[in-house]
């Protein structure tokens, strides 16, 4: 391997769970954080960051309960990042499902500007029928839905109306033709509960992101749902994403399974044309 070989290897790599920060978000270092994500991504070898901005990140409404104004502001900024880095960034449209028709209109607006997925966080427990119109709108546009998850919700947690794997399984069961990405199995909580809850729900994919790098987590995820339902991601800690990439290389995956986790599963569930750089590889 040469001095310029990406740390994560030369195969295509899609991070299905990325975030960018925005100027009105209350973090003075927002531009540095964004630049470091792109630099770190280049060193790892991330072909595409599929990313969202969650409103104002708490500056003018709570991160997980974003106001309509903040929703628009966050999505607008995310679409600017996508336009500025067309070669490697794709946008989720993030909405608060409590906003009803506004949320539906916002999905339409952002898809028209190039959003490729829907991001839902924790403004409403995801088994609530109130989410159904939002999911139906995602289906209309062919978008996968990345849903923020607490692995095994044993109680209420502050600052979020959190959902877990069992809740997402309920929602996914009502919408069997929509692909759901269960967020960050390493992002906190009991991922073993999640694996049991979604094992038999074929339209739920597990994203491997999050700061947690428990040994055994990847093996258990693989056993629970198989390589065709795992998606690599980093969320806000690129170092743990890289550690998991390296671990995936030594847990006995076939080359095909590894490619599925790195990028091919994402290629399949996101809209056609979402990742043009990978078109040739996908048809190879």
């Amino acid at each position, binding site marked *: 391997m040469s001095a310029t070989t990406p740390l994560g290897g030369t195969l295509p790599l899609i991070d299905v769970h990325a975030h960018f920060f925005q100027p009105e978000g209350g973090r003075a270092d927002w531009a540095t954080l964004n630049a470091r994500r792109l630099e770190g991504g280049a*060193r790892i070898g991330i072909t595409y960051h599929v990313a969202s901005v969650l409103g104002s990140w708490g500056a003018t409404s709570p991160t997980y309960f974003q106001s309509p104004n903040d929703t628009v502001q966050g999505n607008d900024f995310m679409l600017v990042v996508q336009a500025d880095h067309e070669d490697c960034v794709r946008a989720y449209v993030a909405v608060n499902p409590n906003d009803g028709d506004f949320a539906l209109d916002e999905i339409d607006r952002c898809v028209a500007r190039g959003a490729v997925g829907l991001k839902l966080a924790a403004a409403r427990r995801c088994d609530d029928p109130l989410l159904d119109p939002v999911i139906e709108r995602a289906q209309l546009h062919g978008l996968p839905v990345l849903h923020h998850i607490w692995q095994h919700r044993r109680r209420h947690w502050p600052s979020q109306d959190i959902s877990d794997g069992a809740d997402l399984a309920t929602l996914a069961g009502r919408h069997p033709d929509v692909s759901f990405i269960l967020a960050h199995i390493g992002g906190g909580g009991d991922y073993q509960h999640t694996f049991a809850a979604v094992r038999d729900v074929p339209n739920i994919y597990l994203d491997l992101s999050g700061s947690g790098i428990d040994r055994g987590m990847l093996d258990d995820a693989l056993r629970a749902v198989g390589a065709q339902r795992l998606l690599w991601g980093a969320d806000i800690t690129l170092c743990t994403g890289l550690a998991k990439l390296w671990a995936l290389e*030594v847990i006995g995956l076939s080359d095909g399974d590894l490619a599925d986790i790195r990028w091919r599963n994402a290629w399949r569930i996101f809209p056609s044309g979402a990742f043009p750089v990978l078109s040739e590889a996908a048809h190879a």
Partner: protein
Amino acid sequence: MPDESRHAPVALDVNTFIGGYPFRHIPHPEPEILVRVLAREGVAQAWVGHLPSAFHRDPSAGNAELIAALAPHAAVLRPAPIVRPDWPGWRDALGALVQAGVPAIRAYPQLWGMAAGDTRLQELGAACARAGVALVLTVRFEDLRQRHPLDVAGDLSAAHVRELVRSGCGARVVVTAAGREFIEEVHWGLTPVERAQVLFDFSWVWGPPSDELATLFRTIGSDRFVYGTMWPLRLTQGARANLALLPEELARQPLAVP
């Protein structure tokens, strides 16, 4: 970034264990596997604790098991057994372990109901200093968000470490699994002389985009850090990935040798 960052030799991993964990299944936590993992990852040697003993009342049986299990791998795996300074006969136990050649002693004050400033921990620190062995403290075994309902002991506090070092016990203290805020609170809460007695692993410090490890290398220095992975609880690739993603100007900063 040269590929050497992935395979550069590492002299010592201070934060490994053998044995099972009471709150979840750990795949293959055996010494033979650890030896293989260290070889694969280019790590020459490891300080190894006995994970089940952390949760036992009397650690002596687990210590004996640890030393016996590591004996066939003595060139690579160095035992870091437990001494409880609230247990009858602990000074004799420490003496025997030092005689056996252990490089470090592990202690878990948060699991033994010892508050910050407990003089028994300070006595253990002083005894370790006299014996020339390091004292390893562990902030956490798992993320607070995923704890088993029975796992209610809480994390080690930064005050535990500050009070221990401020006591003048003179121990070389190695703190594992501390986050950035913990490390800063300890480091900047000590005098320069006291700071020199404390080292941290970075198994729970994040890289880009927040660049906590880079920030700490710039502010308190890479020489306050040692390599630690927390195998078999966590992926051994974590520490190396963190080093590999450091900004170029920090990529080859030397770590401490405990």
